[in-house]
């Protein structure tokens, strides 16, 4: 028993003994065990045949085909339409789309193709449909070509002649500056061949380090008031110390891709901290530092809620005009990223999948327009660039966990780029990687979830949902298309009233709906047979991190012995453990809970917001304990919440290596 459990992390043939195991003497010496011997160096396809006879490889799901498919269409760029450029302004996002910008024709045609029988593609908007044909506009409304490029190009034209050379030359060139310390760091790294487990945290640490550097670069730019080319040059005059770790990381990733664990930044450098995604905002000095180099000028809220001081609490609505004005300035930020940031800030893009896709597509565009400056390699410079974009996005709105995972994926892909690739190839491969992530981990995953979830809906069911989850909406629509007779109760809450949007679309499709607010959930629950909930993230203790109010609905459902099904793509899983919704959360604009629009006569709190003994708390998320969740429907099937860590463990790595 013990022997069975202990070597679990690696591969224990006994684990797979259930039923079948090859007799040991015949177990074919040829194929090595890819898992037991640390991650594969080569890019082994998931269904590769180098698996041991006992091991059961991951499902041969469509990833192979996808891969091929993807390679054929590496750059699914929608044609730039200058006529639509006026819709660049932040309000252009059309809220009636689940995935506002995932709709590049390739992505959706692809989704329908991959699903095979095509039945699930119905749930997905496809360009041909009348009602949903407008996403083409959304997709193409990202600024491209035009004004921004002229600026960018002007700065990078002199550089571009050098780039091809510099890609190869920089490597030996830079260590000259500070050869000694490079050696130091390398020594440091040598003995630390760390176990696999720590890898992700290392990657995170590296990302952090990268972000620091980027932030520094950004600060430099601002400080010196340099024109656009400043971003390119600013890193050069920097002391060699900053450059070195990058170099080293680069070496590491080239030499032995799994050895990357070792790079431990010197303590001094680590302290110069940078917007960690979960920075503690009650730490005065860090907040000051972060503020100095931020693009978005946030004003601290005056009456901060004491318990939530560690979370950023800013005045809302003040930064937008300022930022919009800055749009045309020659900023280090790519316009596409800038635009997405503004959309986050103004709340035009919300919802886990939508935000993640918008961000990835902005990065895709940024990568397309990117050309590595002279004397820099693409791998290092691009990582820094992405990090600076990310810290900008964090300033606009704290990252969701799904976005964090996506960024981790992208950075990993950049780090893993073979040095032999030319810049063009590297960029193309990154772009197709992003496409693949969007289609496999988000769109296809949603389709699989729909397929699973529909099996749990029976005739005569009364389904309750809370807020507006894209996955749940598609499940309901698909079940309706299958002809299942059921009724939907949409539970909603102030201040966002997202449920109304969902309700509108469901009623439009002819579903039988009831709409109520969360205050009535205990009344309505007795007639409910299933509760379907979306999630922003599922943490590894099974806690569901989702829109505030979800925990309340789940708890009431549990009390009524109604089954709670949570629909969540596996890319949103996170290995973190969280017991409450205090230590990590997001605070929304407190004004929206104190004011009710169009009802002046009941706005009793007018002018009270600044009163010293009133603190307004508008939480965005809450954590639902796993006890209240009967099942989590994910792209790996229907699993109990206790199995989330298994999926994170078994597939978290795969997401990085995709």
């Amino acid at each position: 028993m013990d022997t069975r459990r202990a070597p679990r992390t690696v591969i224990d043939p006994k684990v797979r003994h259930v039923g079948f195991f090859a007799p040991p003497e015949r177990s074919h010496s040829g194929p090595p065990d890819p898992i037991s011997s640390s991650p594969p160096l080569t890019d082994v396809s998931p269904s590769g045949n180098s698996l041991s006879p006992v091991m059961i490889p991951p499902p041969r799901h469509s990833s192979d085909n996808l891969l091929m498919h993807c390679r054929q269409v590496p750059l699914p760029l929608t044609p730039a339409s200058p006529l639509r450029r006026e819709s660049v302004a932040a309000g252009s996002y059309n809220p009636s789309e689940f995935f506002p910008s995932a709709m590049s024709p390739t992505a959706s045609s692809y989704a329908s193709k991959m699903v095979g029988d095509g039945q699930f593609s119905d749930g997905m908007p496809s360009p041909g449909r009348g009602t949903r044909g407008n996403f083409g506009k959304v997709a193409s409304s990202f600024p491209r070509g035009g004004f921004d490029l002229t600026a960018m190009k002007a700065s990078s034209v002199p550089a571009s002649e050098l780039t091809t050379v510099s890609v190869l030359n920089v490597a030996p060139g830079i260590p000259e500056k500070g050869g000694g310390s490079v050696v130091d760091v390398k020594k440091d790294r040598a003995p630390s061949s760390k176990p696999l487990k720590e890898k992700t945290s290392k990657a995170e640490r590296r990302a952090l380090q990268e972000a620091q550097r980027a932030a520094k670069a950004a600060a430099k730019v601002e400080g010196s008031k340099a024109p656009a080319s400043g971003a390119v040059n600013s890193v050069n005059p920097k002391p060699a110390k900053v450059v070195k770790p990058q170099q080293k990381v680069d070496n590491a990733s080239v030499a032995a891709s799994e050895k990357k664990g070792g790079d431990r930044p010197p303590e001094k450098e680590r302290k110069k901290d940078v917007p960690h995604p979960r920075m503690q905002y009650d730490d005065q000095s860090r907040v000051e530092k972060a503020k100095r180099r931020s693009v978005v000028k946030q004003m601290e809220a005056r009456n901060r809620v004491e318990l939530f001081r560690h979370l950023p609490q800013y005045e809302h609505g003040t930064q937008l005009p300022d930022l919009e004005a800055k749009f045309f300035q020659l900023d280090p930020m790519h316009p596409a990223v800038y635009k997405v940031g503004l959309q986050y800030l103004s709340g035009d893009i919300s919802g886990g999948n939508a935000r993640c896709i918008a961000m990835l597509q902005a990065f895709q565009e940024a990568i397309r327009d990117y050309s590595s400056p002279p004397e820099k390699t693409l791998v290092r410079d691009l990582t820094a660039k992405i990090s600076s974009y990310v810290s900008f996005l964090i300033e606009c709105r704290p990252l969701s966990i799904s976005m964090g995972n996506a960024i981790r994926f992208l950075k990993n892909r950049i780090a893993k780029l073979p040095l032999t690739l030319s810049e063009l190839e590297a960029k193309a491969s990154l772009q197709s990687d992003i496409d693949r992530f969007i289609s496999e981990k988000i769109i296809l995953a949603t389709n699989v979830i729909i397929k699973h979830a529909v099996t749990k809906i029976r005739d005569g069911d009364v389904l309750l949902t809370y807020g507006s989850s894209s996955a749940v909406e598609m499940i309901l629509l698909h079940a309706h298309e299958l002809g299942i007779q059921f009724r939907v109760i949409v539970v909603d809450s102030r201040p966002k009233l997202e449920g109304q949007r969902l309700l509108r679309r469901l009623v439009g499709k002819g579903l039988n709906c009831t709409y109520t607010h969360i205050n009535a959930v205990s009344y309505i629950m007795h007639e409910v047979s299933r509760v379907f909930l979306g999630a922003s993230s599922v943490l590894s203790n099974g806690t569901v991190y989702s829109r505030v109010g979800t925990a309340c609905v789940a708890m009431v459902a549990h009390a009524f012995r109604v089954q709670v099904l949570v629909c969540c793509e596996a890319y949103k899983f996170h290995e973190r453990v969280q017991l409450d919704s205090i230590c990590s959360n997001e605070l929304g604009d407190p004004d929206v809970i104190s004011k009710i629009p169009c009802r002046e006569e009941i706005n009793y709190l007018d002018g009270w917001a600044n009163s010293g003994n009133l603190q307004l708390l508008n939480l965005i998320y809450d954590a639902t304990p796993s006890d209240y969740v009967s099942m989590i429907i994910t792209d790996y099937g229907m699993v109990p919440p206790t199995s989330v860590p298994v999926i994170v463990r078994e597939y978290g790595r795969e997401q990085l290596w995709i």
Partner: protein
Amino acid sequence: MWWRSASFILDRKENDAALKPEILSLSSPPSATQSSMADTFQNPNTKISAYYQTRAAHHGVVTSDWLAQAQAAVAQKSDDTAIPGNEVRVSVPGKPFSVIDEFNNWRKQPDLAEAVAAIRALAAVIRSSEATTMMELEIELKKASDSLKSWDTTSISLTAGCDLFMRYVTRTSALEYEEFSSAKSRLIERAEKFGELSHKARRIIAILSQDFIFDGCTILVHGFSRVVFEVLKMAAQNKKLFRVFCTEGRPDRTGLRLSNELAKLDVPVKLLIDSAVAYTMDEVDMVFVGADGVVESGGIINMMGTYQIALVAHSINKPVYVAAESYKFARLYPLDQKDMAPALRPIDFGVPIPSKVEVETSARDYTPPQYLTLLFTDLGVLTPSVVSDELIQLYL
């Protein structure tokens, strides 16, 4: 409605070649359907769970209801006797090979688990296959296992067994390196081993569970489970002093059989009617049940009545132990009792039931994981939540 089972028991008796004429005549309707079944790979009588019929046959239960049905059938179909059951048997060799017949042959052995029978049948498919490439063989196997699965959708271990074997065939990459004939023989060897595995699994489970049976304890057992019986037998052989309460196990009275077997081992046994579980629960130290299937949530699907026993035990804080081989782990996730493919089984009430009265004929229920304490499997002693862990590693 009873036909499937009737034919089943008859088929068995047929081999003994000592059939009374009126019972032979009874076999006509089922055998007719069975012969067509061989062609279409369809179980015509989806109303009744073949799985439970087999169990009933194994346990040699002939209820009065069954006899009444038999009488009625004789009266009705006396002119239909032209198609005796023998014809089916005889026609089998002439016809192309049928997995289902093979499967039915295997599962007549009372000691053979359903999953093992399924895999033996699939091995027979490989043997008789004329495929020349691995791919062809895989397709052929796939078809066979699909037809097996669709033939009896109520049997969880049958489905799980087929899935496991198919997994082995499609996922064992070593097979691709070998030449076809050796790969084929390796598959057959594998299937043979699986039979032994099933016996070995029971022994492993019995050994594992010995630590939990202490002297002087009282064990409540529901239904007849071969694994549970093995556990108790080994405990008795180890000279442990314990007492067993057997529920009656209506409607097929499997508890009676278990009490017989235990009495032979000189274990003190007390029989309870099914409704006396709560009454006796305070005397009980632990509940032991088998499982028809272990589902992904960690709950079990088992004979009707398990759920209520688990509920009673849970409310009085008595441990509920489940003994189940790992080939019963299935990728199912029922949310509630109605969320399963129904396995129906007629119930003998001893008196005629008016046609207006509805009868709940479901043969099994689902026990959610929170009411189970531990699962004894050949993989070790698991908490319910580990089941999903194992399943993810097994199937994904």
